[in-house]
């Protein structure tokens, strides 16, 4: 806490947030415990507002703790920050703010997004038509490319995991990792995956059950369609998806921590341009594109998640939120994100990530405890085996409209998030071996999503297939929205109320943990290389993301902007190939003498069988 002003503001915020959180929490909890008394007094929209206030103030307070109480007590007269703005004037403050920004990276995405919103405002229908036409042709045209790149990425990850270069320690052999392994996994997992996993958990398998993938060619909604539906959910959220992050993250991490390259997306170009020429126009172009795609991706996700959240609430409790409800929701979410990002890695981001993984585990545990265990335990081994056996054929299968709509769209979507998630993975990996980075960001995270999809998708399939609830009919009644898929499933399980409660909390926290890291990453990217982003920069980008989300929401066009963001995934897929080939070449030339995983395993074996009296224990330790 070197600067005094943020500390003052923090203390002020914390003083406001705590009573808010306690008051709203008391009412929400009393409604939870005594639904018959309190439920009648408070109306639906009021509940929504109260719950939102509870979440925002609670999460914000967690991020702020511990603020400097004594400091605030001794100096209560004037927050110094306000004083400084008054003294130096607004223009002076803005000038110092701009001075530290990388101008093209800062201004271009801002301009493009403003232009998009303007177009959407003036010619909404033609903008949408143009973008969706472009999207359709792009998805078909880039289909072979994506299929190839993703397969290559998975192969790359497997090779790094097993091969000798996985042994390279980022930052030199003496560097110790700053984050514990569970924390490292938690940060990567919660940042890399947004609220989509919560909605699609129950929904994705149902969609594939209703309309089976052509690869399997089974009868829709039949007994035979159950396993393929699960297999394809695992396929879309498994190793292929997560490897998109790793192939961006690993090269960046390698060049940053062993060749002192700057921590930017353009470092992907290091094998082509050389580490010392990374301030060329090409790098600026890549960084600018990255900032654009991150902001567009995160804000549209925020907007869409808010919409889905409120659709779910409307469906479940019949609470129409009107026009301003979603805007209010986005504002609340933005408040959490800004506080979390501004308080930094050790406070906001780390704590919210821990909370997130805790809720995630709690939810999965409850589902595992009360879910249709017999059905899931029958389907899960079949689905996992199917996933393993059919992985390569599914990966190279690109026939038909279906694959373009689902698989390629999905690949493109993950690649559009890769600049931010990959950069974040790279930033955290100092002191880790590359093998650990790949294992964590691809295989461990995939394992977590696989369990999630088996549990939730399995439960949804069971409820639908056994005829307990017609979830597909319910979704069709809501314009095919995946947002409502969870609620009928939970209603048919024991502890349904609790599940719904945690489900809604998970949506907010998952979105917040992705958006806060993205804010930090964007702020780093847009700031000049020699400066660390100040709190002002972080707050600016957080607020900007929120503003874009609100405006696409109010004007419509969230989906169109999402299409635009997803389309930007294609250039990054190309960049990923360049980086993969380049980093392999660098490793081949400069990194000799590392040992592959197989060698390490072989080394271990005789050591166990050896007797101590033959082989003195002193010799084992170098």
């Amino acid at each position, binding site marked *: 806490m070197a600067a005094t002003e943020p500390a003052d503001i923090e203390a002020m915020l914390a003083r406001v947030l705590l009573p808010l959180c306690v008051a709203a929490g008391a009412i929400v909890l009393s409604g939870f415990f005594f639904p018959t008394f309190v439920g009648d007094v408070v109306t639906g929209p009021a509940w929504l507002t109260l719950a939102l206030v509870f979440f925002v103030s609670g999460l914000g307070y967690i991020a702020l703790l511990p603020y400097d109480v004594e400091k605030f007590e001794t100096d209560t007269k004037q927050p110094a920050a306000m004083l400084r703005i008054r003294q130096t004037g607004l223009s002076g403050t803005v000038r110092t703010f701009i001075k530290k920004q990388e101008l093209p990276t800062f201004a271009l995405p801002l301009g493009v997004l403003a232009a998009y919103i303007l177009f959407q405002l003036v010619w909404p229908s033609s903008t949408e038509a143009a973008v969706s036409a472009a999207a359709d042709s792009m998805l078909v045209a880039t289909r072979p490319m994506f299929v190839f790149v993703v397969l290559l990425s998975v192969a790359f990850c497997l090779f790094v995991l097993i091969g000798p270069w996985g042994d390279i320690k980022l930052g030199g052999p003496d560097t110790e990792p700053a984050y514990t392994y569970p924390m490292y996994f938690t940060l990567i997992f919660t940042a890399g995956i947004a609220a989509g996993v919560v909605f699609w958990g129950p929904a994705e398998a149902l969609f594939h059950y209703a309309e089976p993938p052509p690869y399997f060619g089974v009868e829709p909604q039949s007994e035979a369609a159950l396993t393929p539906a699960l297999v394809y959910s695992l396929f879309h959220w498994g190793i292929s998806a997560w490897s998109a992050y790793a192939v961006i993250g690993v090269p960046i991490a390698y060049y940053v921590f062993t060749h002192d390259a700057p*921590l930017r997306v353009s470092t992907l170009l290091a094998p082509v341009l050389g580490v010392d020429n990374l301030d060329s126009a090409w790098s600026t172009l890549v960084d600018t594109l990255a900032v654009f795609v991150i902001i567009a991706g995160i804000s549209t996700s925020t907007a869409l998640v808010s919409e889905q959240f409120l659709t779910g609430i409307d469906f479940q409790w019949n609470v129409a939120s009107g026009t301003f409800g979603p805007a209010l929701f986005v504002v609340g979410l933005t408040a959490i994100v800004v506080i979390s990002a501004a308080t930094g890695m050790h406070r906001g981001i780390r704590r919210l990530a821990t909370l997130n993984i805790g809720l995630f585990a709690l939810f999965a545990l409850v589902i595992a405890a009360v879910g249709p265990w017999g059905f899931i335990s029958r389907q899960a081994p079949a689905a996992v085996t199917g996933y393993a056996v059919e992985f390569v054929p599914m990966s190279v299968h690109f026939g038909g409209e279906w694959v373009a709509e689902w698989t390629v769209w999905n690949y493109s979507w993950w690649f559009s998030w890769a600049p931010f998630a990959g950069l974040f993975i790279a*930033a955290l990996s100092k002191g880790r071996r590359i093998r650990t980075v790949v294992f964590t960001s691809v295989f461990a995270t995939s394992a977590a999503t696989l369990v999630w999809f088996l549990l939730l998708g399995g439960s949804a399939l069971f409820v639908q297939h056994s005829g307990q609830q017609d979830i597909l009919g319910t979704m069709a009644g809501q314009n095919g929205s995946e947002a409502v898929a969870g609620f009928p499933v939970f209603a048919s399980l*024991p502890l349904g*109320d609790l599940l719904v409660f945690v489900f809604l909390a998970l949506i907010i926290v998952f979105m917040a943990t992705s958006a806060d890291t993205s804010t930090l990453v964007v702020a780093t990217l847009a700031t000049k290389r020699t400066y660390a982003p100040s709190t002002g920069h972080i707050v600016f980008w957080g607020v900007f993301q929120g503003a874009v989300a609100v405006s696409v929401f109010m004007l419509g066009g969230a989906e169109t902007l999402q299409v635009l963001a997803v389309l930007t995934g294609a250039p990054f897929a190309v960049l990923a190939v360049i980086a993969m080939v380049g980093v392999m070449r660098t490793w081949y030339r400069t990194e000799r003498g590392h040992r592959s995983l197989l060698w390490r395993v072989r080394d271990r074996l005789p050591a166990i069988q050896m007797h101590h009296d033959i082989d003195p224990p002193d010799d084992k330790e170098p």
Partner: protein
Amino acid sequence: MSANTPRVSRKEDDVRQSVVDAVFYPADRIPFVEWSELSGAKPAVVLVGAVTVLSFVTGLSNLSRADPALDGPLTAFIAIPPSAIQFGGVLAAFVLGLVTVGLHRRKRLAWSVGVVVLPSVILLPLTTAQATDIPLLLLTTFTVPLLVRNRSRFDRTIDLSSLQIASLVAIFGVLLYGTVGSYGLRDQFVELDTWTDAVYYVLVTIATVGYGDITPVSAEARWFSLSIIVFGTGAFTVAIGALIGPAIESRMAKAFGVMTASDLTLLEDHIVVLGHGDITEPLLDELGEQAEIVVVTPDQSKISSLQDDDGDLNLLTGDPSDESVLRDAGVEAARGVVVSSNDDARDVLAVIATKNVNPDVRTVAAATEQKYVEKFRSVGVDAVLNPRSIGGRLLSQSILDGSDPETLLRSADGEDDESS
């Protein structure tokens, strides 16, 4: 590897690395909570208190429902009556409330009862399996291990006086006698048919409520009832007096500035000031808010004047050279002991007593006369000074080199105190 890559400037690389470090590896780690502080006895007591409140709220929530839900996995194995589920949470909360108070006083008995009652609270959510019961389940599963972990901290026995023991035994005896007896004579009572009726009748009679729905009709039953009234009501009254009287006494004593031992059991890392002398008041001012302080002095008038000056002080009337008084003042868990009355001989005795109770505690003393300084050292005082000789030295220095005695003191304090 580094030899292969020529660098433009070493300095720029450093700047880049420091940017990465500034954003993603901040140097000052700010822990959310200190885990070591969360695993001690105090958090265990707080958690039991939280379980109590939550159990009460959950119980009320169950009561507010028309009929209790029985969806839990336990219902398949145990037949729990619905009324037990409806009232279980609230009743458990009352027991747990007492347990919390006992744990707060570090009582062994409260720990034993708590370890039995807390797991039984889990039965409730496992039976009903309602969403509202799950927080109770989660909180309790965290609390029990913490309580078990800290078992050694709850080691105080309940010191009941012989009167208290006698009255408790008497109540128990009369209850047993009354219940068995009235059930045996149930033919000679109106509306007394079951064991429940018998217990009900005895309690209503002893508590002098006497609803009158169950009445004795034969002479034998009436004699029996009279005996319950005489012995039971008597025991009941005596027990209330014996159990609640000491608490009231302690309250009154506190109002007069005398702490009882139980008020001081919770002190930890505090400073004990033994004796009251000329330097006590400035000492207390200087210590101020920085630590909790217990002042021990035999002088009742000093105690009451301190009580008037500063309500936050813990005051204990007693002889500072008496080991049992020092134990009451918590010298065993204290951060340090200051010995500073005007009587050096008594102070030396107080130091010896302190070292008997806790040989490791830091002890500092003020000697009234210079010749006693060495004697304080020889009984094991960590630091001793004579205020008068220091005053004299400071004054002489001031007159010789023109310096201000206050600044001399300030520089003796060192750098860390410059803010004050």
